[in-house]
């Protein structure tokens, strides 16, 4: 039904000045200058025609290829799968396709961008066309398009998009999650904990006397402290804990499947680790402390914001009680 010759033939009859012979030569030259591989198979999948594109890319001689089975000439082809595909073209008389997006390539051919791309073989879009010349004689035409460029640029685009997505989640200074992503995560963890009746705890923490540090040593020193403290805290967490920069010198940690006592234990560990750590700025030793507020999700809580304000008030309590310590909203838990 789909027939390349038939599509070309109206041209031939309109242009009566061309003889059959000249027309044949023109068609052959076009086929040989196409930047697309053309391979024609007979019903037994033996190769009957191929064009120059394939000849130069496979570096094989025509005499060896013509008459050979496609699977013999190209042993890299997945025989069982391709046979079934070719059968569908024969039986249904419909074209069939194979895109690089599902299979990078069928034929192992070199490509012309060996330096700028990282794949060894030419990425291909293949089209399988049924060719009916006489009622009893069927052929299949395989068109092989080089889409190495498309594949390469799509890969670059994908990489750029992933980097962008990553950047939109990360705080530029400390390289931990930013406020927006942290809050989205809390919303999800809150919903998960509610649905599965799992415990969930939150730690809010704040650097003590951070303004004074900035005033005495300058903002570059303040930045260094933020970076180093983030690194230290990050090293004390489990993979499932979600650590983010909440604001200026305030940080927050989501602890999934953790109850209040577990959260307090971790907070105490973080508190003393930070106090013990001595940092250095311009040859001067700098010691900082943090205050922490801990809260556990209560049954009556209907929004994640409630959990934040609980942890927040525990943090204020820790500040009020002299800093460098952990307070929890355990009193409010007892009230429930």
């Amino acid at each position, binding site marked *: *039904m*789909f027939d390349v010759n*038939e599509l070309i033939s109206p041209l031939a009859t309109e242009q009566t000045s061309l003889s059959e012979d000249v027309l044949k030569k023109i068609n052959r030259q076009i086929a040989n200058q196409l930047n697309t591989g053309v391979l024609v198979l007979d019903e037994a999948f033996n190769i009957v025609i191929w064009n120059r594109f394939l000849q130069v890319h496979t570096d094989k001689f025509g005499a060896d290829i013509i008459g050979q089975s496609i699977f013999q000439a190209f042993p890299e082809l*997945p025989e*069982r*799968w391709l046979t*079934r*595909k070719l*059968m*569908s073209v024969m*039986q*249904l*008389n*419909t*074209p*069939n*396709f194979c*895109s690089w*997006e*599902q*299979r990078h390539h069928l034929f192992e051919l070199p490509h012309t961008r060996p330096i700028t791309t990282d794949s060894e073989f030419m990425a291909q*879009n293949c*089209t399988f066309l049924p060719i009916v010349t006489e009622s009893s004689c069927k052929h299949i035409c395989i068109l092989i398009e080089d889409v190495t460029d498309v594949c390469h640029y799509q890969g670059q685009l994908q990489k750029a998009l992933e980097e962008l997505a990553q950047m939109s989640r990360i705080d530029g200074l400390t390289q931990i999650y930013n406020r927006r992503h942290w809050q989205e995560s809390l919303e999800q963890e809150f919903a998960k904990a509610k649905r599965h009746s799992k415990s969930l705890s939150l730690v809010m923490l704040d650097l003590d006397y951070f303004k004074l540090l900035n005033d005495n040593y300058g903002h570059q020193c303040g930045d260094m402290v933020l970076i180093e403290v983030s690194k230290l805290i990050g090293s004390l967490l489990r993979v499932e804990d979600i650590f983010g920069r909440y604001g200026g010198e305030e940080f927050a940690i989501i602890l999934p499947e953790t109850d209040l006592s577990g959260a307090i234990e971790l907070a105490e560990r973080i508190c003393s680790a930070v106090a013990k750590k001595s940092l250095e700025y311009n040859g001067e030793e700098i010691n900082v402390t943090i205050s922490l507020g801990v809260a556990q999700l209560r049954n009556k809580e209907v929004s994640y914001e409630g959990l934040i304000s609980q942890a927040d008030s525990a943090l204020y309590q820790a500040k009020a009680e002299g800093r460098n310590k952990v307070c929890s909203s355990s009193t409010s838990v007892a009230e429930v």
Partner: protein
Amino acid sequence: MSEFHLTEDQQDCLQELINVAMGQASDQLARYLDTFVYLKVPSIESVDGKELISTLSQQQNTMAVVSQGFFGYEGIRGEALLAYQEEDSGRIADLLGYEPEELSQDEQLIDISSILTTTFLNVFARQIDNQMSYNAPKLLPSVQNSLSEHLQQMTFNWDLALKVNINYQVTDYSFNCNMILLIPETAIINIKNVLDRILEDF
């Protein structure tokens, strides 16, 4: 009623052509798949472009959509969309005669879509003395609302869409999908001319 809407006669004529095309296509498919294919009479609706978007977005759990462009003589062209639900996709490899490890789920969907679309449209084209060519089928990115997003981003303007609901029952497999043929405005005029020509011959 705009110039793009089909008259009652034209609608009947198109339904008849599609019934016949579907019957022949499923006969070919049965032979290819080597099993019995039971086919319900396809229901055909012509729907407004804007209505279609809301109809489709109401359709829950559409798992995947495969798009394939088609074009023939006399300006007959459009895009076929095949929409699958989660439960339709389990045994496509089996149905097509492949081993599951030979091809990915995406490739299975693309393959069955291409076969359904081209088999059906080839027979349809033959009935109106036409011949179709096809673009390579594409799986639309699997995000929610991908279908309505895709429709909104389409480059050509179209007012009318033909919604053909196909329901294939294959022995041992249950398989369902919706085929939607989007036809741009100019192509609708061309189809109406073809339908009128066929109606005159009766």
